[in-house]
């Protein structure tokens, strides 16, 4: 399947052209993207250190996860929204970027994991926690999300 026409179309949309032609829009959207990432990773990190039993030991995992869920989802929405705008503005650059492809793959896996296994494991009252399972779930989420961040940063370097 050839995605080139799709990327070309993205690159020529009104939003794409507007962001590209403005000197301030790209930096502003990029800063908001970073703020979103910060909160997204922060909320995930707090639940993960509880899974690792390295902090918040007096709180139940499900209590932490459900209380932080609205912020986790909101920051994901903000990061995705600004991310789509950044992508549109330089779709052709992304088309030929290796790190971008890696990022999209990791992002797909991270979101899939977050809304299936991770969610069920951390937000359910009925979860039976064992140290091994908790570490595996926590580490997988950290590796996936930091991997997305790493590949995302690499788009700018290569």
């Amino acid at each position, binding site marked *: 399947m050839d995605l080139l026409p799709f990327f070309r179309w993205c690159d020529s949309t009104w939003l794409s052209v507007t962001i590209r032609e403005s000197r301030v829009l790209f930096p502003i959207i990029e800063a908001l993207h970073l703020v979103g990432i910060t909160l997204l990773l922060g909320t995930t990190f707090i639940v993960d250190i509880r899974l690792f039993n390295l902090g918040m030991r007096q709180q139940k995992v499900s209590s932490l996860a459900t*209380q*932080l869920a609205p912020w986790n989802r909101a920051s994901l929405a903000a990061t995705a929204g600004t991310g789509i705008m950044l992508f549109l503005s330089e779709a052709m650059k992304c088309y030929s970027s290796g790190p971008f492809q890696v990022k999209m793959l990791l992002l797909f896996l991270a979101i899939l994991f977050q809304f299936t296994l991770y969610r069920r494991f951390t937000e359910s009252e009925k979860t039976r926690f064992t140290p091994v399972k908790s570490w595996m779930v926590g580490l997988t989420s950290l590796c996936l999300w930091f991997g997305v961040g790493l590949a995302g940063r690499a788009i700018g370097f290569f």
Partner: protein
Amino acid sequence: MSLYSICEWLQNTGWGTGIRESTWVFPIIETTHVLGLALSVGTVAILDLRLLGLGLKRESVSQVMGQILPWSLSGFAIMFATGILLFWSQAVKAYDSVFFRIKILLLFFTLINALVFQFTVYRSMAEWDRAPVTPLRARLAGAVSIALWIGIIAAGRTMAYKF
């Protein structure tokens, strides 16, 4: 000796030049600095949200603070160390950048905000520790902190651009 010439000297030292001209060291330090945001600002933001009564309302403030701050502080240690190295390698660029100056100023305000919190409303924390909605001064400290960090992130990112 002016501040400018100190910056010039700094970035021309062996370390400064080495970091700036390396293929991998600069990107690695830079990426660590960016992803360190999650550990430093990302965790502090959770505490700010608790102070604002917008997150983790069922937990006491002292619990959230005591459990989260050690992580935030180790995050800030990473940010500080990598930030120094980045500055070292491009001190002149930072000196010339208005965004860098804004960033340092905002960082200073963050410190003031934390100190004001520590020496005022924090002292009576026992009285409102479990309250879902904290006193106005505590909420103010949380809101100011979040606003400052957004400004710091934006200023830091914008340093890369020339206007």
